[in-house]
């Protein structure tokens, strides 16, 4: 808590130094608005005056010259339109914004970070659209472009052996990519069938005060979050690393998250009394709780890569990471049992998950106790 308070006060002080008082701002803005927004203001369309008089245009010599100039101008316009079309296509592909980084079979940490960074940036670029209207002709081409980028990313990861530090997140990213591609297939089918529920967005679609969370949206957010952890990965100090673990421990099984928001309620419920939602007949609620637990475990794993342990805590950190890594295959088994209606498999999977959560909490406590 002290570290949090210190950083917050440092943050405020640092930004206050670049925020001098601006008491005139209100008046300046009002003046600007008055100048730029008279009643009935419309974007100004500038009409260029004619440069040549009609009489001069009747000269045969000038008419010939004018035809030549018109021809050249016409060609230039055509070239400009072609360049704009090609440019727009390349822009949507992200070719101007990212460098192609070739996949290397056994990349170094920096090479792997560069690879993920390039694929992440491309993913951000091509996913910056929302499809919530069945009449939007651009939806399917944009989705195809996004899928091409995601498939390329998946191919990059599949053809590279990640450095040990990133191995767990590499596997998680590949699973997210596969799920995004699968969710997009479902979206395309729904869109073509004119299903009014067909939506696709890389960020939550705002609807009034709430947000419509789509399967592909959360997959993209989690994928990009993990990729960001890899790109910005670096070693922490004992102080920062233990503070980070303490916060994630609190999010997992504590009473509230580090920012005061609700932490993983499903995790706490599973450990304290079991998930009532996973009794027979509540498939959707159970799946949602499993997804919540998965997301929390993934975030924890991502943070441990974003801020990896100082050498003195490496052994304890390795134990924590090894236990967290067990969660993914275990959650896959639980989801399979749930979708197959295998209640026995679901129950034993949840028991194992409960034991695992307690063990992860204990691993984290061993690190936090070090501080």
């Amino acid at each position, binding site marked *: 808590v002290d570290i949090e308070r210190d*950083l*917050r006060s*440092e*943050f*405020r*002080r*640092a*930004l206050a*130094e*670049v*925020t*001098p008082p*601006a008491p005139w*701002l*209100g008046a*300046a*803005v*009002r003046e*600007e*608005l008055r100048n*730029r*927004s008279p*009643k009935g203001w419309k974007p100004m369309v500038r009409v260029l005056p004619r440069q040549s008089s009609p009489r001069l245009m009747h000269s045969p010599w000038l008419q010939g010259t004018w035809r030549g100039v018109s021809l050249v101008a016409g060609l230039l316009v055509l070239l400009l339109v072609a360049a704009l079309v090609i440019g727009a296509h390349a822009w949507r592909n992200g070719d101007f914004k990212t460098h192609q980084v070739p996949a290397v079979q056994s990349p170094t940490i920096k090479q792997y970070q560069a690879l993920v960074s390039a694929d992440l940036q491309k993913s951000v670029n091509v996913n910056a659209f929302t499809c919530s209207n069945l009449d939007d002709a651009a939806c399917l081409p944009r989705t195809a472009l996004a899928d091409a980028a995601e498939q390329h990313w998946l191919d990059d990861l599949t053809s590279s052996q990640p450095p040990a530090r990133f191995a767990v997140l590499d596997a998680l990213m590949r699973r997210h990519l596969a799920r995004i591609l699968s969710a997009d297939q479902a979206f395309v089918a729904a869109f073509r069938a004119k299903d009014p529920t067909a939506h696709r967005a890389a*960020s*939550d679609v*705002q609807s*009034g*005060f709430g*947000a419509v*969370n789509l399967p592909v949206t959360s997959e993209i*957010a989690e994928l990009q*979050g993990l990729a*960001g*952890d890899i790109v*910005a990965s*670096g*070693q*922490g*100090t*004992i*102080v*920062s690393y233990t*503070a*980070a673990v303490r*916060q994630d421990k609190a999010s997992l099984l504590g009473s509230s*998250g*580090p*920012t*005061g*928001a609700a932490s993983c309620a499903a995790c706490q419920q599973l450990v304290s009394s079991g998930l009532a939602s996973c009794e027979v007949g509540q498939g959707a609620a159970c799946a949602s709780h499993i997804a919540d637990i998965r*997301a929390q475990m993934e*975030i924890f794993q*991502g*943070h441990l890569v*974003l*801020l990896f342990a*100082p050498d003195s805590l490496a052994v304890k950190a390795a134990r924590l990471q090894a236990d967290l890594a067990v969660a993914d295959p275990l959650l896959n088994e639980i989801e399979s049992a749930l979708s197959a209606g295998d209640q026995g498999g679901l129950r034993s999977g949840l028991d194992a998950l409960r034991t695992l959560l307690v063990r992860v909490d204990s691993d984290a406590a061993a690190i936090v106790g070090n501080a």
Partner: protein
Amino acid sequence: MAVHQAATSLVRDAKSGDDAAFEILLDPLLEPGYRLACGMLHDPDAAQDAVQEAAFKAWRKLEQLRDGTEMRPWFLGIVANECRSTRRSHWWSVVKAQQPEGTAEVPTDAVLTGLELRKALMAMDAPKRLVLVLHWYLDLPLEEIASVTGSSVHAAESRLRRSELELRRRMEGMRGYRA
């Protein structure tokens, strides 16, 4: 409730062309907008330009404000976009130029700490910097941060946590020590 109804009524008036109503709505938003822009750009002149431009765009786009939507997160979202578009190329160059290598000297006073923090903040990508400024400088609750960034509360919290960790690590990297 009465305050909310009054605000809704003002929004309705502003949408129908009442400039005075728009000014009343905008006035209390300029200060947080300016602080947000300063936090994002670290340049008061550019921040004032961004707020002025955002105010103008808000006026033009007022029709897009859905009934019942809070004005503050909507306006701050426009300010954030304005900051992003005015300095996008600069941000990218800063991000690329300032990878922490842990070679700087240990700072000894608050001035140096402030410099380090701003340097670390500028080295982060815009979405992460935005949630940090909204949460730590403007004291916005997560729900409002989510509205400004157009994400769910969960996604906003997740981004905030990641941003805090990254900022802390970058600052430690600049201080060049490993405890």
